[in-house]
């Protein structure tokens, strides 16, 4: 215990984890020392979540060994995790959520220290956050919830955080807040803490990490200091070669008549890919939901639906978790294959098999449970569901959240092909790179459309300019 300061917080020796025949993690050796900030990258299904769950004690390894410097359990050793899917209790207040993971808060009057502790932690990481520790979590926005979760991860909680695992912590934060977090991570590591940082935003990984580990198919394929990596090298190591940015195709002239127009000014023509952009939470999702609800009826369901919806919030309004992959795909096309009100099983299976191949869903059998798929593949199923319906308009509400680069490229290609065949896409995305794939972009600000960009005008600068309100002297 003399070299406590420099001893690794956690050491993995050839750790492996199998789920039945699936080798989720196939022998990983890794040591995380105080002061380390490790960037963990890999496409969906590479074993990142499994590795994280081994380190934080959520799973025990099938073989190999995991050693903690203090005590035998992850929690005793000061290992905390902040997960990608929000894992707060929405019915409790912010301070009460801290109590869940802080057992030392006891006795009457525990609320005051809980409020103080969470507020201090929030203030330290996100100055000027404006979150009330007495607010119930379900009254907070998604970004605020994520901030609370991160603050709980870094809070002392009786001992001290020695290793904090952050799984896609910035996916629902806007750029300013994300910068505050990155700055805090750097401070935390400089003070001798350790961080494992998982993100699909390469820029962030390169900014904070001093070491990058690339996972592929359950193995570490590269582990080097950040300076020794280039972005292209990193993407290559992950096994997916980013396709060259599509050459500007110019404005496609072969667009059909206008088939969507809303009071807000949102419009789309047949075969057009229309993007919705702007800062998160400025009314894009609400505009799409209104459009969808106005074009579909709660009472009648016609033989050919007018619009199809691809959900971004998979657990909430996407997957049917108890159903198989096949059922999850075919639900939108049941009416077309039905005969006298009965489902045509063969037609249903054909539809699912056809989309499994076309969109590349990674499974042996479409009759497997949908939850057996990784997040990115679940998202592909949702795309397949929308595209399998004969709807002429497809509405997409930030569908690429937490999806890996390879899947994204597949889906982009699919969307372009379907658009060329005359389908119209309305696509809300938080990532500028995706919006640039569109034929026309509406930028939202304060629940109104602040700009409409077409063709060569669709650039990051123009979108940013339209997203931010410029202060004018009145």
């Amino acid at each position, binding site marked *: 215990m003399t070299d406590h300061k420099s001893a690794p917080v956690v050491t993995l020796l050839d750790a492996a984890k199998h789920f039945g025949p699936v080798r989720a993690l196939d022998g990983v050796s890794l040591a995380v020392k105080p002061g380390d900030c490790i960037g963990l990258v890999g496409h969906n299904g590479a074993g990142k979540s499994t590795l994280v769950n081994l380190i934080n004690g*959520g799973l025990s390894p099938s073989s190999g060994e995991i050693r903690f410097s203090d005590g035998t359990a992850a929690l005793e050793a000061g290992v905390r995790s902040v997960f990608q899917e929000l894992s707060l*209790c929405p*019915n*409790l207040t912010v301070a*009460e959520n801290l*109590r*869940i993971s802080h057992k030392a808060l*006891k*006795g009457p009057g525990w609320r005051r220290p809980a409020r103080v502790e969470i507020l201090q932690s929030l203030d330290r990481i996100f100055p000027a956050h404006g979150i009330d520790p007495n607010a119930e979590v379900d009254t907070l926005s998604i970004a605020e919830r994520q901030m609370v979760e991160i603050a709980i991860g870094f809070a002392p909680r009786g001992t001290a955080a020695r290793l904090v695992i952050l799984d896609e912590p910035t996916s629902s934060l806007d750029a300013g807040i994300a910068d505050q977090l990155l700055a805090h991570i750097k401070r935390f590591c400089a003070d001798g803490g350790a961080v494992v940082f998982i993100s699909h935003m390469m820029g962030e990984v390169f900014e904070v990490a001093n070491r990058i580990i690339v996972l592929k198919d359950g193995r570490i394929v590269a582990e080097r200091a950040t300076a020794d990596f280039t972005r292209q090298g990193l993407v290559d190591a992950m096994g997916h070669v980013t396709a060259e940015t599509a050459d500007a195709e110019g404005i496609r002239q072969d667009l059909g008549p206008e088939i969507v127009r809303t009071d807000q000014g949102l419009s789309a023509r047949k075969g057009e890919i229309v993007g919705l952009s702007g800062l998160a939470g400025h009314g894009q999702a609400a505009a799409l939901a209104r459009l969808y609800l106005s074009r579909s009826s709660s009472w009648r369901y016609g033989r050919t639906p007018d619009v199809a919806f691809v959900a971004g919030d998979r657990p909430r309004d996407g997957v049917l978790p108890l159903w198989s992959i096949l059922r999850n795909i075919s639900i939108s096309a049941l009416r077309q294959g039905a005969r006298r009100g009965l489902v045509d099983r063969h037609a249903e299976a054909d539809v699912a098999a056809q989309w499994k191949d076309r969109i590349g869903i990674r499974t042996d059998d479409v009759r497997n449970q949908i939850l057996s798929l990784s997040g990115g593949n679940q998202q592909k199923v949702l795309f397949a569901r929308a595209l399998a319906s004969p709807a002429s308009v497809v509405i997409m509400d930030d569908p690429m959240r937490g999806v890996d680069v390879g899947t994204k490229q597949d889906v982009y290609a699919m969307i372009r092909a379907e658009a060329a065949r005359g389908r119209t896409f309305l696509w809300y995305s938080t990532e500028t790179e995706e919006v640039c794939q569109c034929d026309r972009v509406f930028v939202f600000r304060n629940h109104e459309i602040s700009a409409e960009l077409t063709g060569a005008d669709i650039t990051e600068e123009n979108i940013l300019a339209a997203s931010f309100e410029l202060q004018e002297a009145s």
Partner: protein
Amino acid sequence: MSFLARHRIILPVVSLAVLLAATFYMQPRAMSYFGLNLLFNLAVPIALATIAQMMIIMVNDIDLSLGAFVSLVACVTATFLHDTPMLGLLILMALILAYAALGALIHTLDLPAIVVTLGMSFVWGGLALFILPSPGGASPDWLRSLMTVKPPFAPMAVVASIIIAVVTHLLIMRSGIGTVLRGVGGNARSVERAGWSVIRLKALAYGLAGLFGVLAGMALVGLTTAADANIALRYTLLSIAGVILGGGEFIGGKVSPTGAVIGALTLTLAASFLSFMRLSPDWQIGAQGAILILVLTARLIFRQKGAEA
């Protein structure tokens, strides 16, 4: 967030106040110490049963055996607790432990609580019939005098309701363990990741439900002085309605002990109110249901307004 959405307790309070005002308008003589006691007397066991149901709903389950369980407790109280107090006490404690074990079983085997408790309702009902095949028994004297005590200022029923509300509020809303129990309803996985044993927490929640179920049965016998194997069967649905009326939700760990007690009072009062309106008893159950739907509709409308704001 609107004011009403933030303070969920307001709607139950308003419902009770409106119903109380209507009752006093129909029958001004009820506005007295004696009248209030008569109106709310039977609310005490219902309030305790509602709290018991709330413990189960708090962890995202539902208990369909509560009425049968309270009946069984009433039978035990009127026989064993009266004749051989020690044995009676042991049986009641065993019943609480059985409830806790049921909670652990439901969680471990991942069984649907609705099915398990429905099955258990026949077990409890059978045991009750076994103990007391025909209505009878007698209330222990101390229990009888406890339930008919006449405190100054406010009648027993009102004082007891306030005590129940305060104690359960401290236990569920203010204490650390109560917070964690509500966390199980909100996001069991996150509680488990924080190092808690969810099995134990569920057993605790069910054990608390058993405890309050036992108290409900005892209070009932203290009021009626005798028991019957079917004495409290309608408590199952009354308690669920009480929890929901009091601002609770079926899932998500959103419960309010104070609201649950107020919900139980409202339901009891609704029955008296309908009698004052000279409504035939045949229609009363339907009318009670109508009141329930009315209140829930109001809540839904306010919530939607709150969401829009």
